[in-house]
């Protein structure tokens, strides 16, 4: 598969030798009428109207190829194969237009903060000089006072001191993908020649975990394989001492189901797997690491908000820009074959506000009304929210279905609800028992 063909950073540098030489300046960005970013509510909010949709996170595809050939990759192994036609590396002129569009968007909405995730493919294949220029170009186009948070999600195998110096220079947070120990990880995460990637990723994590670099480490992403032992995977990830991690359900839907997930079946292989990890992680005190999925779920059952689009009623506020400047909705819609999710929009011809009206972005129905009847009648709806949008898809019938993971999500949510309910009750008893001993008025 050509997606997995090794694409060396050196080869890339040769393609972009002019731009890459010696710290190229950021690309000039067309001027826009930038209002100061104040964080004030938009004019619409002043009129008690819901604020207009805006982009809170931009997933920027800086390189469209990968140096690994993971057999579970949603970018290369699913329905959308348009990556084959796209430039390997995002061009400087495209970056400049992205920066312009982003600056305009923030100014229009008076947003004071936005996050850009440098993504791929494998983003580090773009090389440190190109990434340096991208970040400086983006920052240079923001309205006065606006803050650009930058992250990069990498497979880790190219992560070295030079990249980390760049991350420190620009405050780039580094997320690394790893699926567990050597056996678990190398089941899927392999080089095109079949070699496993674990040893190289582990070396990168040891580097990233050093005291001088740890501040830049955002976390570990692990895609669940129910054939891997859940506790073995969890312990192997925690052994790297990540600040946080997340457990991702492999992408699939009702028409292209995930491995070992029988659409409509009542078995719960993923729910069981996740519950096993939860039960190992949750009781440990002090807390060893954060798990985004579980902490989001605990927050949701307590009436809070989710930190992941995999749960809760997520707003469609994440936009993707491909290396050719194409604007798309959330990247995981690639796993569906729904042509209506292809926007036909790009940064050269369309603003982000225009793009947000598309059905793959804020133009799609949201909230309970957008869900299937059985979801709206489900007692865990407020925590589940229908699960990840892409997981609700059925070919020819759209997204108004429960998640293909419905039984698994239900099993996990009910379990977490029981555990948290018992602990909250215990906290109540303890607080009431301690109350008389406390000074009056507290």
């Amino acid at each position, binding site marked *: 598969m050509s997606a997995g063909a090794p694409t060396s950073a050196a080869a890339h540098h040769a393609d972009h030798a002019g731009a890459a030489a010696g710290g190229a300046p950021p690309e000039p960005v067309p001027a826009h009428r930038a209002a100061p970013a104040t964080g004030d509510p938009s004019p619409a909010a002043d009129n008690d109207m819901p604020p207009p949709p805006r982009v809170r996170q931009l997933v920027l595809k800086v390189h469209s190829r990968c140096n690994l050939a993971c057999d579970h990759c949603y970018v290369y192994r699913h329905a959308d194969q348009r990556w084959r036609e796209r430039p390997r590396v995002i061009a400087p002129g495209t970056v400049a237009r992205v920066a312009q569009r982003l600056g305009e968007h923030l100014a229009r909405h008076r947003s004071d903060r936005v996050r850009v995730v440098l993504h791929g493919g494998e983003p580090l294949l773009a090389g440190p000089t190109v990434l340096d220029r991208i970040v400086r170009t983006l920052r240079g186009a923001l309205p006065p006072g606006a803050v650009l948070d930058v992250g990069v*999600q990498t497979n880790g195998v190219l992560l070295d001191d030079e990249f980390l110096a760049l991350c420190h220079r620009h405050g780039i947070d580094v997320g690394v993908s790893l699926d567990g120990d050597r056996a678990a990880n190398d089941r899927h995460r392999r080089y095109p020649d079949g070699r496993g990637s674990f040893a190289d990723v582990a070396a990168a994590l040891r580097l990233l975990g050093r005291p001088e670099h740890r501040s830049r480490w955002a976390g570990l992403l692990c895609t669940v394989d129910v054939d891997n032992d859940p506790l073995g995977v969890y312990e192997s990830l925690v052994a790297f001492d990540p600040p946080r991690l*997340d457990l*991702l359900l492999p992408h699939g839907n009702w028409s292209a189901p995930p491995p070992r997930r029988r659409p409509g079946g009542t078995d719960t292989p993923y729910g069981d797997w996740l519950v096993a990890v939860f039960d190992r992680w949750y009781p440990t005190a002090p807390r060893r690491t954060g798990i985004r999925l579980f902490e989001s779920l605990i*927050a949701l059952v307590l009436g809070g908000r989710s930190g992941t689009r995999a749960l809760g009623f997520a707003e469609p506020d994440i936009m993707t820009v491909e290396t050719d400047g194409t604007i798309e909705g959330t990247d995981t819609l690639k796993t569906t074959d729904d042509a209506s999710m292809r926007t036909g929009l790009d940064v050269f011809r369309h603003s982000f506000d225009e793009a947000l009206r598309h059905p793959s972005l804020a133009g799609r129905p949201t909230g309970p009304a957008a869900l299937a009847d059985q979801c709206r009648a489900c*007692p865990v*709806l407020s925590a589940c929210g229908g699960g990840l949008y892409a997981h609700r898809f059925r070919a020819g019938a759209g997204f108004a279905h429960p998640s293909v993971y419905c039984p698994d999500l239900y099993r996990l949510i009910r379990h977490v609800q029981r555990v948290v309910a018992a602990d909250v009750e215990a906290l109540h008893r303890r607080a009431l028992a301690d109350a008389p001993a406390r000074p009056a008025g507290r």
Partner: protein
Amino acid sequence: MADPQLPAPPVEAGAALVRLGDLPLADLLAGAGDGVLAHVLGTLAAGDEPGRQLDVSAFESSF
């Protein structure tokens, strides 16, 4: 899906499946120790979005 062991809570978005009750959150936190629940309660008390820090992406395929 039915679960007879747990009451059916409200289903609207944002509804709590576990209610914290009328005790001040600070009182609950005082006895919560330094485990996972204490961490999440702390973020709730701080008004943050638990599990979602400003410097971490909510896009599920990244941090």
